[in-house]
């Protein structure tokens, strides 16, 4: 198909799609309206179960099955990346030369690295109270680790990052989520039902029954998943060279 023909097809299809979407939008409940029955029900249920952050409550209690699905997509995407970006037979590793980083930048990176790790853990740990949770905190902690690559060099990062351990942690996080779910079945209720633990005191770290446990499992999985992903990309971008003339 020539480029001009393709653009013409795109224009026709795009106009049709735009018209349909705009029509659909005109029929949606108006922006800022007062009618949110599901939201109100979720807030009531959350307060019943002593979880201060309703969004975390929806993720890890009401819709815990949905989060299980999201988590499997994440896991599958990481496995896919690891398979696609492994070192092929016609490639070899060439250790990169250390980069010359200006001293203030290096000092900043080494100073901020522990702060960012602590903030990441804080965001995970307070997921059921204040904004945050396993998904967000995991990404922050994993990104923080890569300040070593930015501020020092790739070799320093490789020394503190045993990839095998992170791959195992990733799998463990996934298993932990399933185990917490199955514990509900063994206790005689349903899979992922939040009836296992006492709900605790409202607005404390141990409140919310199984919500903090599932949150921690997700935090563990996301952290290791992002570290493994970035490790594969860094390997490809920095270290792995193709054989000449292959």
């Amino acid at each position, binding site marked *: 198909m020539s480029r001009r023909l393709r653009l013409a097809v795109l224009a026709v299809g795009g106009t049709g799609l735009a018209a349909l979407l705009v029509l659909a939008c005109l029929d949606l409940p108006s922006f800022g309206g007062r009618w949110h029955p599901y939201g109100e029900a979720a807030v009531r249920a959350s307060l019943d179960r002593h979880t201060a952050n309703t969004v975390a409550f929806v993720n890890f209690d009401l819709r815990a099955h949905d989060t299980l699905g999201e988590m499997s997509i994440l896991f599958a995407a990481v496995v896919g990346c690891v398979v696609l970006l492994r070192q092929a037979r016609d490639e070899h590793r060439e250790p990169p030369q250390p*980069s010359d980083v*200006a001293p203030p*930048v290096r000092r900043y990176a080494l100073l901020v690295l522990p702060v960012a790790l602590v*903030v990441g853990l804080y965001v995970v740990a307070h997921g059921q109270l204040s*904004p945050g949770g396993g998904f967000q905190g995991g990404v922050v902690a994993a990104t923080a680790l890569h300040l070593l690559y*930015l501020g020092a060099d790739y070799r320093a990062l490789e020394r503190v990052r045993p990839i095998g351990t992170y791959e195992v942690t990733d799998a463990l996080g996934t298993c932990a989520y399933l185990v917490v779910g199955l514990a509900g079945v063994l206790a005689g209720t349903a899979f992922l039902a939040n009836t296992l633990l006492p709900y605790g005191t409202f607005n404390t770290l141990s409140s919310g029954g199984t919500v903090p446990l599932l949150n921690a499992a997700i935090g563990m999985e996301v952290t290791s998943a992002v570290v493994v992903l970035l490790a594969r990309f860094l390997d490809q971008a920095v*270290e792995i060279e193709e054989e000449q003339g292959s």
Partner: protein
Amino acid sequence: MNAWILAATILLGAGLTAALWGVASGPLSRRMVAQNLTTAVACPSLLLLAQGYHRPSYVDLALLLALLGPVGTLVFARLLADELAVATPAAWGLTWTAAGVSAAVVVAVCAATGPSRAMVKLLVTGVLLIGGNLVASRALQGGFRQVRGG
């Protein structure tokens, strides 16, 4: 709508429009400076919004941006170092203006909060924001001398 949110609206409207204009056109050095400016505009705005909505827990957002914004700039400074070496961006005037605005916002929000644990968080955010902004500007000006690989 109160004065805090009005201030945030003006800061966001003016600052982010300028950042968008800078990041979407012109030579690479200008785009990098504009990308760095994003953090310096958005982070004080988030502090103002947290104050305007009377929600101290929104300060976490500003804290996270103050941490990760400079990291993003370092990513670009590091991975585009060989292109940046040709034309080094110099925008210390802009950097110090941004630092001044950040400091003013942090002081104003601190004064409204009063001495408490929340104020400590605000001060940490401010220090990280201004420090990160200065270091990121430094990194753009030959912070990484590229060697093969790296």
